[in-house]
C-alpha cells in the first residue's frame, strides 16, 4: 500500500470524480440508468478511497500532513502539485464524500426540472473534485483553482435546475463569490511576491508565519483573504447571496452548498489565513468575532421573519456559521477545535434539513410555512426526522450540533492572550442568547410544519412517507449526527492534534 500512502490515495480521492464525469459525459443522454450507475459507483469508489485514507491515517500524528504528494507543476511561478491532509482536513474531506454519495442517491428518481440526469450528475461529480481538492491542497494556486472549480458547477446547477428566480440567484452567487476570490487571489499573489524565497507552498508560508512582512502589509493581505473566505462562509454582512442561492437552488444543490461549500470559507481561515498571517489575525480577530456574533443574532432574527421553510434554513446557516467563526476568532485551540467540529456538524445537520425541505416541497409543492401543517399526521417518519434534525440544529446536547456550539461559546470566555477579554466575553453572552433564538425559530418551524392537522387544501392529498432512496441517503447522515453527539471524541481526537499545531503556531508568532 505504499503507493496509496505516498500521495496516490489522496490523488485518487480528488480526481476519481472527474474521471467518472468523463465517463458520464461519454454515455449517450438517453441511457439514464447507466449514467446514474456510473455516477453512483464513482462517488462510492471515491468514498472507498476516503475510507482507505481514514483507515490508514496515523492518529497519533494528526498534526502532520499525511498522504502527501509534492510534485513540480507550474515551474514558472513555482507552483507545485502539493497535496496532503492533516486532522483538520480529513473530517471535512470525508464529509464532502459522504454528502456527495447521499446526494447522488437522493436524486436517483427525482431530478428537478428540466430533468437531464447526465448534466446534473456530471456537475455533481465535478463539484466533488473541486471540494475534495480544496481540502487537500497545500499550494495556494492549487487551492485557488479547486476553490474556484466549485463555482461553475454550482452556478449551472442553480441557473439550470433552480427555482423561478434562478437567473438572478445564480449570477448573484457567482459574482459575489468571484469578487471575494479575486481579492483572495490578490492576497495570494502578494504573499508570493513579498516572501523570500517566493513560494505558494502553504506549509512553508505557515512556517514563516508572516515573518518579514510589515504589520500594515500583513493586515492588507489578511483583508483580501478575509473577504475571500468571509463571503464564502458567509459572514454578516456578506451573506446576502446565500438565502437567494439556497432558495432557488435544487435540493441537492442546496445540500452541497450548505454542507460543504460554506466550509471552504471557514476552512480557508483555519488552513491559510490564521497560520500564514498570525499577527494580522490577531489584529482582525475582534472584528471577526464581532461580525460572527452579529451574524448569530441577526441570522436568527431574520429566520424568525421567514415564511419560506427553505429560506429559513438558509438564514439559520448564517447564524450557525457565526458560532464557527466565533470559535476561530478566539485563535485558541479550544475555539478552533469547536469550529472544526461545528463545520462537520453543520454540514451533516443543515445538509439534512435541506434534504427535508426538498422532500417536503416535493410532496406538497410548496414551502410556505403558512400552508404546511400536520406533517406528522400524513408522513410521521418524515415529520420525526424533521424534528430530530431541528433538535440537532438547535444544539441539543447528545447530538452533533452541541459540540460545535457549546465549546465555541466557551472558548470566547478566554480568547488568546492579547485579545480583548471583556469584548470576547460580551460576545460569549450574545452567542449564548443566540441559542435561545435558534431554539425559537427551529421549534416554531417544526411546530408549523409538523404539528397540528393538515391544512384543508392537502387533507386528501396522498403524501407518501420516507421512501427507499431517501432512507438510504439519509441514514448515514442521521447516524453520524447521533454518533458524533454521543461520543464527540470520534472527531475531537482527529482534529485536536492538528488544531493545537495551528493554535500553537499562532500563539508563538504573536508572542515572539
Amino acid at each position, binding site marked *: 500500500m505504499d503507493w496509496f500512502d505516498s500521495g496516490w490515495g489522496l490523488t485518487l480521492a480528488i480526481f476519481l470524480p472527474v474521471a467518472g464525469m468523463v465517463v458520464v459525459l461519454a454515455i449517450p443522454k438517453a441511457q439514464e440508468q447507466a449514467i446514474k450507475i456510473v455516477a453512483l459507483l464513482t462517488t462510492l469508489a471515491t468514498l472507498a478511497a476516503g475510507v482507505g485514507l481514514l483507515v490508514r491515517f496515523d492518529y497519533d500524528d494528526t498534526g502532520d500532513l499525511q498522504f502527501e504528494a509534492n510534485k513540480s507543476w507550474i515551474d514558472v511561478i513555482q507552483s507545485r502539485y502539493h497535496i496532503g491532509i492533516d486532522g483538520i482536513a480529513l473530517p471535512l474531506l470525508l464529509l464532502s464524500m459522504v454528502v456527495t454519495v447521499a446526494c447522488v442517491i437522493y436524486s436517483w428518481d427525482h431530478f428537478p426540472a428540466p430533468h437531464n440526469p447526465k448534466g446534473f450528475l456530471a456537475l455533481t461529480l465535478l463539484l466533488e473534485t473541486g471540494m475534495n481538492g480544496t481540502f487537500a491542497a497545500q499550494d495556494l494556486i492549487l487551492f485557488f483553482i479547486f476553490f474556484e472549480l466549485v463555482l461553475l458547477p454550482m452556478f449551472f446547477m442553480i441557473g439550470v435546475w433552480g427555482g423561478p428566480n434562478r437567473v438572478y440567484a445564480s449570477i448573484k452567487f457567482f459574482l459575489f463569490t468571484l469578487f471575494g476570490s479575486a481579492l483572495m487571489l490578490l492576497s495570494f499573489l*502578494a504573499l508570493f511576491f513579498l516572501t523570500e524565497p517566493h513560494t505558494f507552498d502553504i506549509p512553508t508560508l505557515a512556517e514563516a508565519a508572516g515573518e518579514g512582512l510589515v504589520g500594515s502589509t500583513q493586515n492588507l493581505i489578511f483583508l483580501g483573504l478575509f473577504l475571500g473566505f468571509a463571503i464564502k462562509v458567509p459572514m454578516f454582512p456578506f451573506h*446576502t447571496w446565500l438565502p437567494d442561492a439556497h432558495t432557488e437552488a435544487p435540493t441537492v444543490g442546496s445540500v452541497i452548498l450548505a454542507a460543504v461549500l460554506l466550509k471552504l470559507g471557514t476552512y480557508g481561515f483555519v488552513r491559510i489565513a490564521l497560520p500564514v498571517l498570525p499577527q494580522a489575525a490577531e489584529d482582525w480577530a475582534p472584528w471577526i468575532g464581532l461580525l460572527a456574533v452579529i451574524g448569530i443574532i*441577526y441570522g436568527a432574527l431574520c429566520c*424568525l421573519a421567514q415564511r419560506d421553510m427553505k429560506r429559513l434554513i438558509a438564514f439559520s446557516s448564517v447564524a450557525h456559521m457565526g458560532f464557527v467563526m466565533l470559535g476561530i476568532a478566539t485563535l485558541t485551540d479550544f475555539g478552533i477545535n469547536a469550529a472544526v467540529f461545528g463545520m462537520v456538524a453543520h454540514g451533516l445537520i443543515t445538509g439534512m434539513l435541506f434534504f427535508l425541505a426538498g422532500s417536503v416541497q416535493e410532496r406538497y409543492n410548496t414551502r410556505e410555512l403558512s400552508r404546511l401543517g400536520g406533517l406528522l399526521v400524513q408522513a410521521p417518519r418524515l415529520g420525526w426526522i424533521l424534528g430530530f434534525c431541528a*433538535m440537532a440544529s438547535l444544539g441539543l446536547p447528545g447530538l452533533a450540533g452541541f459540540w460545535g456550539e457549546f465549546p465555541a461559546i466557551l472558548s470566547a470566555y478566554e480568547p488568546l492572550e492579547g485579545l480583548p477579554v471583556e469584548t470576547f466575553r460580551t460576545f460569549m453572552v450574545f452567542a449564548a442568547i443566540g441559542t435561545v433564538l435558534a431554539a425559537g425559530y427551529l421549534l416554531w418551524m417544526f411546530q408549523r410544519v409538523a404539528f397540528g392537522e393538515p391544512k384543508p387544501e392537502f387533507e386528501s392529498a396522498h403524501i407518501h412517507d420516507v421512501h427507499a432512496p431517501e432512507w438510504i441517503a439519509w441514514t448515514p447522515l442521521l447516524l453520524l449526527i447521533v454518533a458524533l453527539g454521543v461520543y464527540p471524541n470520534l472527531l475531537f481526537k482527529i482534529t485536536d492534534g492538528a488544531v493545537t499545531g495551528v493554535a500553537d503556531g499562532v500563539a508563538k508568532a504573536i508572542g515572539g
Partner: protein
Amino acid sequence: MLRNAWLIPLLPALSFVAILLVGKRLPRRGAELGVGAVGASFVLACVAAWQWIDRVEGATGKSEGLRAFGKGVLGGEGGEGGEHAEVAVAPVTRGFTWWQNGNVEFNVGIAIDGLTVMMLFVVTLVSFLVHVYSTSYMEGDRRFTHFYALLSLFTASMLLLVVADNTIQLLVGWELVGLCSFVLIGHWWEEKPNADAAVKAFLTTRVGDVGLMIGIIVLFFAAGTFDIQAINAQAVEGEIGHTLLVVASACLLGGIIGKSGQFPLHTWLPDAMAGPTPVSALIHAATMVVAGVYLGARLYPVFFEGFSIDGGTINVMALIGGTTIIIGAALAFVQNDIKKVLAYSTISQLGYMVMGLGVGAWVAAVFHLFTHAFFKALLFLGAGSVSHSGSHHSFDMKADMGGLRKFMPVTFWTFMIGSLALAGIIPFAGFWSKDEILATAGQNEFTFFLVVGLVGAFMTAAYMTRCVYLTFFGEYRGHGEPHESPRAITVPLIVLAGFSVLAGLVNASALEIEKFKEWVEPTVAFPALEHPEFELAGAALALAVALLGILVSYAYWFRNLGPHGITARNPLARAGYTFLENKYYLDALYENVIVGSIKGAIARASYWTNQRVIDGAVNGVATGAAQVGRFAYDVLDQKAVDGAVNGLAVSTGQTGGLLRYVQSGRVQRYALMLFASVALLSLALFVFSN
C-alpha cells in the same frame, strides 16, 4: 453496584431503542419493555442505595468516638476538621475519556454519593410506578408505543443527569430531559394549545439555560475543570475568587429558575399540564422540575460561597425561592383545573426547596425534594385517576367533579394522604421536611424567610382543602358514571401513599432520627453546615399554621362561612381576583410584549434591513458595475486594451463563453472587470511594497 451504577441509566436507554425498533410488534405494544427496564433499574438503584448506606454506616461506626467529639465543632475553615473530616465518605467515581480539546481530556463518568443514590431511588421508583400506571391510563392511546419510548428516554436522561460527575454531562442530561418534556407535553400535538405549551416549556427553560451554560463556562475557567467534585472542593477551600463564584452562582441560578419553575420563569409549568397526567406526575412534579434543585444541591459549595449564605440574612436564591412560594400558592387558589392547582402547588413547593438551599438548609431542602416527589406524584396520579374513571377525562373541578369520595374510595383516601402530606400535617412526610426548612431558616437567622415559609404553609393547607372539597365532597356535578380505577392505577397510588406517610420518618428530628442527613449529606468537599435541633415551639407553630389554613378553608367551603361573592361586590377584591386570574399578567408580558416584538417587529425590521439595506447595497454595486462595464466595453474595449488585460481576457473569455451558453454574457464582462482590477491592484501593491 456503586461502581456499576452506569447500568441504571443504561437500561432505560436500551429500552428506548428497543421500543422504537420493535415496540409496536409486541403484545403489550412496548409497555412491557419499559416497565421491565425501569423495574430492573429500580432494583439496581435499591442495591446501590443499600451499598451506599452500608458504606456510610461502616465509616461512621469506625469513628463513632471521634464523631461524638467532633459534634458541635462548627469550624467553617475546613482546617479545623470537625465531624466532616472524620467520617469522610468519598463518592464512588468512574469514567473514561469523552472528548479532548487542546490536548486536555475530558471525562464522561459517574460519581455516586448519598445525594445521587437518593435521586436514583426516587427517579426509578416514581418512574416505575408511572410506567405501571400508564399501562391502564394510556390504554388505547393513539401513540401508546411512542409514549412508552419517550418515558424510557426520559428516565434514562434523568438518571444520566443524576449520576453525572461533570457539569457538561449534567448539561447533556438536563437538555435531554427538556427534550422529552417537550415531546411529552406535546403528546397530543394535533391540538394547537398542546403544541404551544410544548414549545413554550422548551423555550422558557432554554432562557434559563443561557445562565446555566455561562455558569458552567465560568466555573470551568475558574476551577480549570468540569469535574463537579473538584469544583466543589476548590469552592470550599476558597481557591476560586469570590467574584467568579458570585457570577457563576448567579448564572447557574438562572438555570435553576428556568428548570425548577421559579419566579419569574415559572409560567411554562402550568401550561405543561397539557401533557398526559402520568407525564405531569413524573416529569413536572417528581423528577425533571427538581433537576434545578438538584443542581443547586450538587454544586452547593459554589452557591454557598457565591451567595455568602453563611452568616447572611438575605440572598437572591432565598429571595427567588421565597417569592415563588407565595406567588405560586396564591395562584393555586384561583384554578378550577385540578392539575393546574397541583402545578402551582409544585411551583410553590419548589420554591421551598430553593429557599431552603438559600438559607443554608441543605439537608432540609433535599429532604423536601425527597418527600415531595412521593406525595406530589401521588396527587397527580390521583387527579389522573379521577379524570380517568370519575370525571370523563375532564380536569375541571367545578364542572365535572364533586362528591367523588363515595365512588372512588381508594383514590379518595390516597389523595387525602397526599394532601395532608403536602399541607404539612404531622406525621405525614411533608411535615418533617417542611418543618426542617423552617427550623433551619429560623436558626440561621433568616427570619424573613421563616415568616414567608409559614405564610406559604398556611396557603398550602388552605388551597389543598379547597381542592379536596371541590373534587371529592359536595354533589357530583359530572355527566359520567364515576367508578374506582383499575388496579394498575390504584396500586401505584397505594404505594406512593405509603411513602407519603413513612418517608418523613427517615429524618424525623423530633424522634432524633437523622438517618437521611447521615446518608445523604456529602462529607467531602462540602461546607460545614449547622443542623437545627428540634424545637417543639417551632414545629408546633408550623403545624398550627397549617391546621389554621385547613380550618379557614374548611369553614369557607364546607360550612359556607366567610365572604362568599366578595369579588362580585367589592371592586378591590375583584381587581385582585382578576390580577390573579391573569397570572400577574406575566404571560401577557412574555408572550405578547417580549416574544411578540422579537418575532414580529424586530425580526421583520432585521429582515427589512437585510433585503433593503444590505442586499440593496449589493444590488446597487452590481448595477453600478454593469454600467461601468458597459462603458468599458463601449469605450475602452472597442479601442485599445493593454496586453496584460488581454492576456487575462483570453482565459476569462473561455469561462464567459461557457456562461453565455446559459446567460446573456454579462457575467463575462463582470469577470473581465474583476480580473482586470485584480491585475492592476496586484501590480499596484507590488510597486507600493517595494
